[in-house]
């Protein structure tokens, strides 16, 4: 619990300082976060490699693991289709395009803005793109912050399905912390499949 509070605190602190403009511009260049992410992945790799149960983990890869990305997709699409009824401005397929970003906010927002411009016009398409950016960013943040709760109420696979396309990089460390290290390869496998599906599914839903 103390850990999750620290996570919230640091994120909120970042928002506040970012909003205040009271920080060196160089921090936003994007390179720093990327290199820290690389460092993080290296650390995660070391923690996997030095794990004494590594061989047991590798033995746990199984075809029924395909059910997990399937659960993520079905769960996301059915719930998003349902709430699209509350958003009269956007059609079901437009909402599903946002949902099929699967927390991959950078790619999905750019794709949606570009693919929707011919039919909706640039201003409206940009609006939908920003919604995709915020929605998928929120999904990543929800996974980062909510994983302990997800495990408690929905089982050990819940953070993986919540994290969707991010479970092989940005949310992998928090998933290994909350769900257990034995699910790390499940999480990577899931993230790779979901990641791969984003460009296809976003294009598909944008074509209606």
């Amino acid at each position, binding site marked *: 619990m103390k850990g999750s509070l620290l996570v919230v605190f640091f994120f909120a602190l970042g928002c506040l300082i970012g909003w205040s403009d009271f920080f060196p511009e160089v921090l936003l260049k994007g390179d720093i976060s990327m290199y820290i992410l690389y460092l993080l992945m290296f650390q995660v790799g070391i923690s996997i490699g030095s794990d004494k149960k590594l061989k047991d983990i590798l033995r746990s890869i199984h075809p029924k693991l395909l059910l997990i990305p399937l659960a993520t997709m*079905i769960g996301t699409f059915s719930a998003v289709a349902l709430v699209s009824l509350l958003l009269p401005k956007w059609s079901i397929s437009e909402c599903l395009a946002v949902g099929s970003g699967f927390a991959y906010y950078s790619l999905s927002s750019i794709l949606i803005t570009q693919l929707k411009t011919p039919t909706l016009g640039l201003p409206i398409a940009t609006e939908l793109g920003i919604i995709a950016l915020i929605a998928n960013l929120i999904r990543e943040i929800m996974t980062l912050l909510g994983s302990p709760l997800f495990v408690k109420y929905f089982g050990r696979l819940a953070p993986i399905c919540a994290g969707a396309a991010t479970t092989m990089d940005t949310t992998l460390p928090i998933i290994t912390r909350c769900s257990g290290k034995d699910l790390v390869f499940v999480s990577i496998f899931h993230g790779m499949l979901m990641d791969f599906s984003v460009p296809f599914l976003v294009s598909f839903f944008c074509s209606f």
Partner: protein
Amino acid sequence: MFIVIGIMFGGIVIGYLLRRVQLFQKINNLIFYTILFLLFMLGLSVGANKTIMSNLTTLGWQALLIAAAGTLGSVIMAKIVYNRFFRERGKP
């Protein structure tokens, strides 16, 4: 994306070769501090992005609704799949 995976596999190899080094068994604490820093950086870019901040009230709630629905739908499906296919006997 493949760079990220490549770096991790590099870490796995190094971690495996050096698995007897006591220090490496404490890597999880270090991972947590790195996560904190990355979240701080994510907050920084959200707070500093004026497009996101100025449109937050008009677009934010729609985004929140879609994000919450997607996340909730996924964790519910996760519970169903976990209970039906993955739960081991005697485990919660």
